């Protein structure tokens, strides 16, 4: 087991180094970092001095090592467009993205499980068919189109909900801004969270439905019925409980996707998060922000995958035995 943990951990480090290499190559070769810092009329000697001071004349391997060391200390340099440390810019916008992502994930999990259970238990009901149709649309429609549709319905036509920004925010503990404590903040969260979570919701619904149908056919459910247990106990105490392991795995794996896909939702709703910052950086060729965001997303996916793999190793005895031999 320990060998497995170490091997898996080393793999993650290698992947992160590869992502770091891509980020470094971007940083170093896409546009000259010095040109971004000096004006047109800066004398050549001054440019050279700055170049040496930044260590841009060192061997590439040394520069890469320094880049990785700095990144490990969360230092990604100065943004070209904002003239501020990239880390601070990202940290300022992280709460907006994280609140949106976790709300979307919670919505997807709760509604997805409920819809999945219902459509498995009442397979032929009208509502179950409606759910199936919704899930087909949810898989086929691009995220941004769903967002536009929701804005048109609930913001333009009905005027119920806002479509732009985060609403009022409250600062907690000096740095975390939250929209969860104000009325306008909560109202502003509804449409983006649904947009972002809809795809994952359909995914979870399909998964729960399939797993439930499978479990309902097993002998222990028949036996539970024969014992005269109440239907609700059978459905929720026995059947649903056994479908939850794969569901939670998928939900965990999807969390990274949700944070990444927030780029699209944040653009549609002008939500002031990290994704919007990244997209602005792409438009303005702000390489330090792009490189930092790339490493952040890479780290997120690698960490989530590592945790899921290790958790499997802990939970599944078969995997443990296979590893030992």
């Amino acid at each position, binding site marked *: 087991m320990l060998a497995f943990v170490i091997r898996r951990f080393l793999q993650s480090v290698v*992947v992160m180094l*590869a992502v770091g290499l891509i980020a470094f190559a*971007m940083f170093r070769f*896409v*546009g000259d970092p010095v040109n971004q810092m000096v004006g047109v009329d800066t004398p050549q000697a001054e440019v050279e001095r700055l170049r040496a001071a930044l260590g841009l004349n060192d061997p590439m391997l040394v520069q890469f090592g320094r880049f990785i060391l700095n990144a490990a200390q969360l230092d990604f340099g100065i943004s070209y467009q904002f003239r501020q440390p990239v880390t601070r810019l990202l940290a300022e916008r992280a709460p907006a993205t994280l609140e949106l992502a976790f709300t979307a994930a919670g919505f997807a999990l709760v509604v997805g499980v409920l819809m999945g259970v219902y459509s498995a238990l009442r397979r032929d009901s009208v509502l179950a068919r409606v759910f199936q149709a919704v899930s*087909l*649309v949810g*898989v*086929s*429609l*691009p*995220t*941004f*189109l769903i967002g*536009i*549709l929701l*804005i*048109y319905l609930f913001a*333009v036509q009905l005027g119920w909900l806002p479509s732009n920004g985060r609403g009022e925010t409250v600062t907690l503990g000096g740095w975390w801004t939250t929209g969860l404590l104000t009325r306008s903040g909560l109202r502003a969260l509804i449409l983006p969270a649904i947009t972002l979570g809809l795809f994952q919701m359909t995914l979870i619904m399909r998964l729960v439905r399939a797993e439930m149908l499978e479990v309902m056919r097993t002998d222990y459910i028949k036996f539970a019925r024969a014992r005269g247990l109440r239907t609700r106990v059978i459905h929720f105490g026995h059947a649903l409980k056994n479908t939850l392991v794969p569901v939670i795995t998928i939900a965990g794996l999807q969390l990274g*996707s949700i944070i*990444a*896909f927030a*780029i*699209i939702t944040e*653009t*549609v709703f002008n939500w002031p998060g990290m994704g919007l910052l*990244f*997209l602005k950086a*792409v*438009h303005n*060729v702000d*390489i330090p922000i*792009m490189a930092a965001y*790339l490493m952040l*997303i890479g780290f997120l*996916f*690698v960490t989530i*995958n590592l945790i899921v793999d290790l958790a499997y190793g802990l939970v599944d005895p078969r995997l443990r035995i296979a590893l030992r031999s």
Partner: protein
Amino acid sequence: MPHPTSEEGKGLVGGGHGGRVARLIDSDILLSLRASGLTMVAAVIVVAMFLGAAFAPLIAPFDPFDPAKIFLSDASIPPRWQEGGDPRFLFGTDDQGRDLYSAILYGLRVSLVVGGLGVLLAAAIGITLGLVAGYLGGRVDAIIMRIADVQLTFPAILIALLIDGVVQALLRGHAREETAVPVLVISIGLSFWVQYARTIRGSTLVEKSKDYVAAARLVGLPAPVIMIRHVLPNVIGPVLVILTINLGLAIITEATLSFLGVGLPPTQPSLGTLISIGNKYLFSGDWWIVAFPGATLAILVLAVNLLGDWLRDALNPKLR
């Protein structure tokens, strides 16, 4: 799926011209197509959209790229059946006075070309790497499949966005019009190759141990010839299904990138670009500028996905 040496395969390749069409119509595949009404509708829609896109210059009443024929006085006219509509413009006009119906036909063309070329490139990369990995094995196999595993943990659309964003940043808007399509195609190709590679590698591993490969080796054929002439025809079957299913994804990817402003520029609009333009006018009540390109995109992707689902089931011998 093995190489299609079944009835319809022979009929298509070697049969006389008279029986060929009849055989095709009688084949299992078309039978299951006719059996499912929804799939039939999807197929008709996809074919109609392909034709509309292919013959856009002939069908479209206006050339949306000809500035001499676009007048700002025609801007933001609602669809024909609405109050204030103009009989010349079926779906109305956009903010610059472009006929939306024509713009959609041309946009469909761009979306289908980018999506189609993107999945073809992805298939080419994936098939090559999968074949090489499966046939050669060893270290080559390990390296290729490790890269595939890592890439699979990231959503393809995110990878496409990162590649596209970095390249756009690299080009700094130089010659955006000429480079936008190739950059998008390459981004999609590099994002979607993994599934092909894994499928092809799996079947190649099975085929490799069969006698005909051993025989080819004994005769002294070089590895590339065995891979391409002998193994490839036997493992290529499932690719068609993946191609169809990925076409929908590729079209969505292109539309998303264009919507985010890193895809096709407004001077050369795809469906995604048109939606992004129309999105700005949502609040001013000009709903049609976003609604018709959006509906076209949604119907196209839905139809392609339905077709892909059906094809997967129809070609699966277990479900026959």
